[in-house]
């Protein structure tokens, strides 16, 4: 692929004796949603801050749509729309004033379309300090888009947002992708990353631990399938391992097994339940989720 809009090569960032980012490299294609995952202190925010021109890398190369984050700061602000994780506008500023101000610095008219799109048109006269977390996040996203950026960086955009707010932000991110905007999404939420991202990178202790589509990253871990089964009389709770699956244990009446081939294992379990005339209330066959793979990587601590 050669339509990379952002390239990061061997990025290193040290704070005195601490290496926050240690030789991270990845490329991001134009128009994709790229997830940056990792536990606290993994180096996600530092990596993003280097991309945003808010930190000086110790070494390594970064190119954002052909721009150097430190040498082309003014142009970068037009190319990159940024929603920071921990930032705030003045409490007394009105939503409409914030949009007017940001648009004035981008040399465009106040973006009424964005206010409408993010449900902020009725909140134009509301002070930032009196807005809910979801409303603040929506306003920050709208402001990040005010200059029509090619790339949008979202650092934990749904942190502290309710279910409806989350759904609205997810819909907005999909719309951005449909418009061809590249989205870099840093998140702790594996379900969010799995649902939204075309590709993800997992950082552990400043190093790249996994890179690929959510499916590729998940598949690279344990290949075993989990079977969860609940019967009316609980006859299988003491069944233990069977020929085709190893028993994991039980919780609240649900017994769990791990197997390499689901079909014969499920058949064997169903036969066992039927032979004891115990009706099956619930049966689930699940591949490991991205979250489980993430935990596996974090606990293993292995990097690429």
């Amino acid at each position, binding site marked *: 692929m050669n339509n990379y809009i952002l390239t990061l090569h061997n990025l290193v960032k040290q704070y005195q004796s601490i290496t926050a980012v240690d030789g991270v490299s990845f490329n991001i294609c134009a128009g994709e949603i790229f997830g940056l995952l990792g536990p606290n202190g993994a180096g996600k925010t530092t990596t993003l801050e280097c991309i*945003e*021109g*808010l*930190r*000086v890398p110790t070494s390594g190369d970064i190119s954002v749509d052909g721009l150097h984050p*430190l040498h082309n700061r003014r142009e970068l*602000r*037009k190319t*990159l729309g*940024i929603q*920071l994780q*921990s*930032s*705030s*506008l*003045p*409490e*007394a*500023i009105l939503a409409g*004033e914030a949009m*007017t*101000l*940001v648009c*004035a*610095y*981008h*040399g465009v008219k106040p973006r009424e379309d964005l206010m409408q799109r993010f449900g902020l048109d009725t909140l134009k006269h509301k*002070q930032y300090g009196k807005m809910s977390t979801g409303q603040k996040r929506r306003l*920050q996203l709208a*402001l*990040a888009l*005010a*200059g029509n950026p090619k790339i949008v960086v979202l650092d934990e955009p749904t942190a502290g947002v309710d279910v409806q707010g989350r759904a609205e932000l997810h819909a907005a991110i999909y719309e951005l992708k449909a418009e061809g905007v590249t989205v870099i999404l840093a998140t702790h939420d594996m379900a969010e990353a799995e649902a939204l991202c075309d590709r993800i990178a997992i950082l552990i202790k400043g190093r790249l631990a996994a890179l690929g589509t959510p499916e590729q990253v998940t598949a690279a871990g344990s290949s075993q399938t989990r079977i969860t089964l609940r019967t009316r009389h609980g006859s299988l709770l003491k069944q233990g391992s069977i020929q085709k699956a190893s028993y994991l244990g039980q919780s609240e009446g649900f017994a769990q097994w791990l197997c390499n081939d689901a079909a014969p294992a499920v058949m064997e379990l169903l036969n066992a339940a039927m032979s004891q005339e115990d009706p099956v209330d619930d049966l689930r066959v699940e591949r490991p989720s991205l979250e489980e793979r993430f935990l596996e990587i974090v606990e293993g601590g292995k990097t690429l």
Partner: protein
Amino acid sequence: MNAFLSQIIIQLRMDIRDKGTLLVFYIVPLGFYAVMGAVFSSVNPEIKPILSATMAIFSVTMGAVIGIPPSLVKLREAGTLRAYQVLGIPNASVLLSIGISTLIHLSVVCFIISISAPLLFDAELPQSTGGFIAVLAALLFCSTAIGLFIGSTAKTQSSAMLLSQAVFMPSLMLSGIMFPAHLLPQPLEYAGNVFPATHVMRAFYGLAYRLPTEYNSSLALLIVFAIGIVASAAAAWRLGKITRVA
């Protein structure tokens, strides 16, 4: 330029919406002025003729030195400066818009005091309106610069408040606003020269009211401007340092 003008207008509106800022810029100075005019000038008649000048010094010093620093520190602590930076709003324009907005608010207060003091409290009109305006301009510039410097130097809001009080209280007590400076013990009278309010007071005496002063009132005005220039440069340097990409 249009963007910067928008920013100043928005900053002016935000200041009025913010109860804390409103209190420090308008309510407390005007309330204190009313009390001083009605009560204290009867106790200390020497103050009465120059009430406009003394209350302008009080209001401007309070508004700028007490009002600016906590709000500037809050902008840093809350990550607002970073948010503005990534949204394409330069830190320098944030600092300037706060400074200009403060100048405008405090000019309004000084205007109210200057107009009402002769009518309400029999204060004398300045002998030289131009001199009065020149000294007032120097006072506004210098106090705002000191406020910006404290705001960009203090690490926390509480340390900003301490630093502000360390400038404001001696300015009030040693400059001759509350009582004549010559009544102070000599070491304190000398110490008063550290604070711009003392020189502003002398400049008002000489340039606006044509009263005798201990030294050249034009020199006093120059000292005030010089302090303002040094404080502005130091504030810009401090803000550059704390927001520098590292």
